[in-house]
């Protein structure tokens, strides 16, 4: 079973946007894909996923429409908007800067000179 870590809202939004980069997905698909691309590190339950998807839609970064799933079930599909793509880019870049800085900070040995 995948490990469950606390996900900040912002990082969840980023992950969802990333999963939609290649094309529209329905809710379950997004959840599966997140688990896939994080190699099982993050498992996003429906309780966090649905509010996040709706929030992203209301912010204008994704749109939704009814479609058919692979099992011919009626499902709600989400896809990136142009603004969403731009948001994905900027958030990715920001996340990169943050993680680089954290990496450097945490790499300093405990007894290093100030």
């Amino acid at each position: 079973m995948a490990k469950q870590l606390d996900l900040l809202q912002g990082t969840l939004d980023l992950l969802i946007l990333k999963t939609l980069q290649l094309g529209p997905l329905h809710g379950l698909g997004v959840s599966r894909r997140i688990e896939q691309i994080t190699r099982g590190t993050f498992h996003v339950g429906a309780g966090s996923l649905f509010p996040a998807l709706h929030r992203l839609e209301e912010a204008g970064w994704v749109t939704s429409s009814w479609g058919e799933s692979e099992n011919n079930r009626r499902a709600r599909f989400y896809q990136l908007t142009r603004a969403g793509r731009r948001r994905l880019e900027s958030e990715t870049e920001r996340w990169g800067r943050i993680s680089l800085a954290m990496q450097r900070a945490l790499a300093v040995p405990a007894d290093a000179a100030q």
Partner: protein
Amino acid sequence: MRLRFLFRNLIRGARVDRQLDDEVRSFVDMLADDKVAQGIAPEEARRQAHIEAGGIEQLKEATRDAHTGAWLESFVRDVRYGLRMLARTPDFSAVAVLTLALGIGANTAIFSLVNVLLLRPLAYPQSGRLVHAQWRFAQGDVPSVTGTEFAFWTEHSRAFESTAAVALFPSGFNLVTGSEPAYVKALAVSRDFFRTLGVQPVLGRTFTADEDRPNTPKAVVLSYGLWQRRFASDPGIVGRTIQLDNTSYLVTGVMPKGFVFVLPYAVVQHVDAWVPLALVPDAHDQGHDFTMIARLNPGIRLEQAQSDMARVLAEIRQDIPGHVRSNEGGMWLVPYQKWVTGDIRAPLLILFAAVGLVLLIATVNVANLILTRAVVRQPEVAVRLALGASQGRVLRQLLTEHLLLAFLGGALAVIVAPVAVHALLAFAPQSLPLTAVPHVDLAVLAFAFCVSAAAGLAAGILPAMSASRSDVSNSIKQGARTLSGNSAHARLKNFMVTGEVALSVLLLSGAMLLTLSLIALERTDPGFNPRALSTFHLWIPADKFETAATTWDFERRLLARLSSVPGAESAAVVSALPLEPGLNGDATVTTGKREAHVYVEKRSASPDYFRTMQIPVVQGRAFRESDDASAGLVVIVNQTFAHLCCPGGNVLGGQVALNAGSKGTWPRQIVGVVADTREEAIAEPAPAMVFFPPAQLDDELRAVFSGSSWVIRSHAPLSAGEIQRAVAHVDNGEAVADFAPMTDIVAESLAPSRFITTLMIVFAALALLLAAIGLYGVLSYSVAERTHEIGLRMALGAERRDVRAMVLSDGFRVALPGVAVGLALALALTRLLRNLLFGVSPTNPEALLAVTLILVAVASLASYIPGWRATRVDPMTALRYE
């Protein structure tokens, strides 16, 4: 973007919800499909899918919360739900709303007074820059200056943008328009008066420098009210001349509607017109006859202006050597608004605090009601929690319901408020320094809103918090069992009622003390006999009788005429009656070899004055007809004067001289001492007084004593018509004004005390009623709770009276600690009333004892019905239900 979604969520809410439902279900279905594909049986797969997703309703709820405008939508839903719940228990809702309406309404009415009197800046532009000059004496602050002082300050001070001198008291004029003379009150003001206040006339202009000089054609500025009443709002009034006291006055302008200038010591505030003061500095240095206001220069602070005053005072002492004031402590500047409201600030705040306590008690009662009802609502709350609502959510909904109660009460209060304010003003004392009419305006509405919100929160927060923490499974199990014996609730409610009782004791003690004080005031001997006395004012036109001699001649003839009116015993004229504002000033007394300086009230009084007023002559004699211009100059003083200047000795034969600055002194011999009379107020001790016979006043002194108040003692009440006819018989053209029995004047002087006392009694009564209702409530509840126990007792042989005694003792167990705490609070806090009390100490034991007895009686009364209900318990029925 968000806005679009906001609209969608709020207006198309049902459709959004259906879509959400579809989406979530499809998610769960697909999850189940996955599991089936993994080989799990379909039903098991569905079950697992549901658990993994977390439940469909919870998912939908969580998603809905993420929608824009979710809070608004849930708020609206809460309000509608709350209204439905309140409608379902109309008894509870009605009582709660009415109780809160009562508390909020009383507070709003008092606040409208506080708003106008204390909070609102005066209706003048930048009214914070207006200051008022006062002399500080050992006896207190005197708001008056002499003409010389005013002129000097205006010239030499650097702190003021403009200054204005105002006559201390309005003068009366006879206005003749058409056939009937009317009596008009006019205030004499210096040229810059309107400029200092910063108010422009709505028609025409104010005075020029020329018009403010003596012996120039006279001018007058009319008030809006006078212009409406007497001149039919004639737009051509400016430039016309009118006849005041048979002299032509040019109307230069009309002031705006509602323009008011308040003199805090004035008995009645309204003035019909303004005339130029025409100050002549040298001639008028005899008395403190004017009051001075000024507008500070922009950028000057009060402290700077104050030091400037000190500098000018030093200069005036150098320049005018005779300018001596006894016991003087310098001249001080006070913000005008503070001076106007100074006296009423403390009593008004006390009333405000008292009415706040009433609201507190009302709030506690409502909280108790909510707690009682909360028990009934418990199962419903439990079900909601079980369905996945967060505690915060339930708390919010309950709180909304309670706030709804409060705002309904507030709305009711606001609707009724104008009536309450109107009633309040109707019996408020005339001397209330109202610069505007209190009414329900924006500030008052805002206050009502805030108070409602606070009351709703205070009443509802604890019950809501405890309800939303319900033990879920227990409550659902017990279902409809309403009286689950929540003992923590019962203890809380009893505690709150004890608090209510304590607060009512506090309010009742205050009301009791004020009542005793009022009774003492009304019983105080004012020093004269006000019964069977009729009084009126008559203004002797300055131009009609030009000299003191002719004036006194007129007065003497009128006195003779008045004495012969059927039923009249005697008549007199005095410059100011007791309890009317009069002139004062310095005097120097020489007795034997000693010289003393006294600050005195000075009056001119006709020979029959003391006899008419029934003021006993204690030493020497009263004035005689022979005390005229040809005889030696005499005065009569009162007992306080005698004690002040020669305690233990004899003041008769001593010489009194009024200090008159640069002018010569006026030594007169003291020939009599009369008993003290209350002058400023019944509550104030008698001041030192000096009386002059009108026949011995010279022209200048006569001009200073320009007012005349007439008194007639008669067997039977006289009518204004009789008096007017008598006056007309002697000289036509004077209007009799302010005709009133002396008892009315005495009553009006007590009006402020009566006002405060009556309000306190009303608040105490309200508080007591609310506390009694609260006590009744908890006792009823406890009797209902203990039905089983009562039935048991009765079955085991308890008599009805034992049961009643049990309920009574329960009532006392709640009330008596409250009484004790309340008495302690009273002992600590009633000292705040000290300035309002007369002849009564704040810890008067009789008062506190009376309060205790009243509370005991009320508590017994409140226990009566629950006690009676308890005796109606049928033991068989009670025991059957376990």
